[in-house]
């Protein structure tokens, strides 16, 4: 008798498992009972280290995702030096160029990624469409694959083994305060317009800041680059001299390093034109302050990040990590990130999780047919609003360079420090 009696606990567990597997079709494939005890520790930047994602993971997959959020440089540093202190690195492609060769990570078996063939071709062939340009710098494709489990170098072509499972990417440009700049902004060189003396800013992360500076210098006709993403010493010298000259002339109000610093600079009116990231623009707008993510004639500087597996992951934890990565591409998360103004790696599934109005506004560059809500449910844009820069194709199709780690990286950093100290 007692053998067949179901305990209350058992019923609950069964119910939980049934609910869990019902929420997302096809997941989870591992026994819900023991995966619940798994905790995956993830380190990343504020871009995608977001609590709602961890909560949804708990709901859909049953295990715990523990998030640590820090800045771009610190993520790379922790991944390279304290690899055992977390399990998954949510890291940028240009950082992985430095981190992967340290042997801190294991490659991802693409056969275990169900939607691999639906991933945006930027990551799998290097080109958005077969005709489009690859873009200078550390493009995700160039550091996205390796030949073997122990390879330290990158394959440069599609293989079975990925370094990072692409999650989120975007095309960056300058943010402006349209109410304070007083004229149309059309080119990168407008950052150095003497009219904005003491009211401009650039970001102080060398690998990204130098690219923005190069876009500006090239646009101003001050410097011609062979490859902005891999400058020669002479090109670095010229770029830094260009920046120091502007700094001494008092062009810059401040340099920022973290997302919220850029939001505060812009919202308070300390700065009217600066390097910016898309959700920072949204954050300024949500404070009721006008801010535009201005498309510029020369095109965009892009970045991408992805999830990487640390070398020590094995067994159930590794299985859970693959579950998590598959879940990431399965729709909810893509929609969540697209609503922040980023792009998700698999568009099809994200589209299914977004309303027609949302998809039209964020991805197709169409005027909103109804109010656009931010991910936390606050109204962000009124009906009729159009996204700065337009559709996905228009924005990602105009990428001219990617955030980079250059061969002359060591030299660049020394010179960048000189610029900051100048």
């Amino acid at each position, binding site marked *: 008798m007692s053998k067949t009696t179901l305990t209350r606990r058992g019923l609950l567990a069964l119910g939980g498992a049934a609910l869990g597997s019902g929420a997302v079709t096809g997941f989870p494939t591992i026994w819900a009972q023991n995966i619940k005890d798994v905790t995956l520790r993830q380190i990343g930047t504020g871009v995608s280290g977001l609590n709602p994602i961890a909560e949804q993971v708990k709901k859909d997959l049953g295990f715990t995702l523990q998030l640590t959020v820090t*800045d771009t*440089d*610190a993520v*790379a*540093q922790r991944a*390279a*030096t304290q690899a055992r202190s977390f399990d998954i690195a949510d890291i940028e492609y240009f950082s992985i160029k*430095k981190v992967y*060769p*340290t042997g801190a990570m294991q490659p991802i078996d693409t056969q275990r990624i169900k939607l691999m063939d639906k991933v945006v071709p930027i990551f799998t062939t290097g080109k958005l469409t077969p005709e489009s340009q690859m873009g200078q710098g550390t493009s995700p494709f160039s550091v996205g694959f390796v030949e073997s489990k122990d390879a330290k170098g990158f394959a440069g072509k599609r293989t079975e083994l990925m370094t990072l499972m692409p999650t989120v990417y975007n095309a960056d440009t300058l943010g402006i305060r349209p109410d304070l700049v007083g004229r149309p902004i059309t080119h990168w060189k407008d950052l150095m317009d003497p009219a904005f003396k*003491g009211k401009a*800013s650039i970001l*102080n992360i*060398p690998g990204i800041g130098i690219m923005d500076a190069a876009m500006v210098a090239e646009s101003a006709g001050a410097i011609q680059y062979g490859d902005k993403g891999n400058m020669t010493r002479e090109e670095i010298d010229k770029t830094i001299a260009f920046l120091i000259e502007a*700094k001494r002339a008092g062009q*810059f*109000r*401040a*340099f*920022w*390093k973290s997302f919220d610093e850029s939001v*505060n*600079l812009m919202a*308070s*009116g*300390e700065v009217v034109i600066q390097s910016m990231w898309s959700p920072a623009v949204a954050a300024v707008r949500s404070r009721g302050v006008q801010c535009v993510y201005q498309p510029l004639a020369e095109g965009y500087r892009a970045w991408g990040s992805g999830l990487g597996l640390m070398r020590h992951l094995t067994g159930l934890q590794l299985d859970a990590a693959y579950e998590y990565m598959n879940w990431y591409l399965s729709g909810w998360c893509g929609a969540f990130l697209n609503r922040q103004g980023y792009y998700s790696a698999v568009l099809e599934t994200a589209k299914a999780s977004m309303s027609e109005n949302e998809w039209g506004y964020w991805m197709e560059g169409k005027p909103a047919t109804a109010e656009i809500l931010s991910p936390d449910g606050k109204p962000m844009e009124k009906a009729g609003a159009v996204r700065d820069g337009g559709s996905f194709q228009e924005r990602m199709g105009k990428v001219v360079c990617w955030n980079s*780690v250059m061969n002359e*990286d*060591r030299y660049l*950093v*020394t010179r*960048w*420090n*000189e610029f*900051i*100290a*100048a």
Partner: protein
Amino acid sequence: MRRSALFSWLQAAPLALVLAIFLVVPMAMIVVVSFFDYSAFSLIPDFVFTNYREAFGSAVTWRTFGKTLWYAGLVWAITFALGFWLAYYLAFIVRGEMTRMVLFVLCTVPFWTSNLIRMIAWVPFLGRNGLMNQALIGAGLIDQPLEFLLFSDFAVVLAFVHLYTLFMVVPIFNTMMRIDRRLLEAARDAGASFWQTLWVVILPLCKPGIGIGSIFVVVLVLGDFATVRLMSGGQSASVGLMISNQIGLMQYPAAAANAVGLLVMVLLLMAAILRAIDIRKEL
């Protein structure tokens, strides 16, 4: 005799061990790493002088060290002037233990929040459209907002003074309270003026407190990187900030070489302060 010697060694052993493991070994590691070579991907154990040559062969490093010293000197002078008179007021002017305690606790109020929050709080106050500028414009004193208030050396020094004046007040106050009041009466009876009493009696007796306060302030300013970055808006550099940038970019040997340079500078300054003032009198 032998037994008691052994006993003293044993008594000192725990502290010596803790210091050896958590201070001497890491310091030694920093010195060792400062001679390593490095690539973008990894540290290469070696014995090369390139890190020192790159660091100290560059005018920027010297300028940064100079700037850091300048911050330390200026902040020291201001915190000393402020701290001395605050302590003087608390020790000699205020009557009644209770009032004195209340005023002393008031001095520590800023320390109830974190360093970072105290720093960030200056931003909305000093900004272009901040409270200070609005007040000045409202009062008709200026018609253009003052730009130098924020993201400037002025802002950095202001934040330092705000953060560290208490470190000057406490030890000076402490030594002042220990001064035998009869000495002051004797000075007055012997016909000394206020300034003479201050110069000949109070100041020499406060030297240990001034020394301890100076060490606190100078060391804190020399090692700082957060205040300089936030308050100068990343426009100014300090040695700490330079090291933090290099660590952020995984250039550990370069950072270690600069850290050794900073350590030498701090030790030299400490030696100078301790030579001028015998702080052991305090203890």
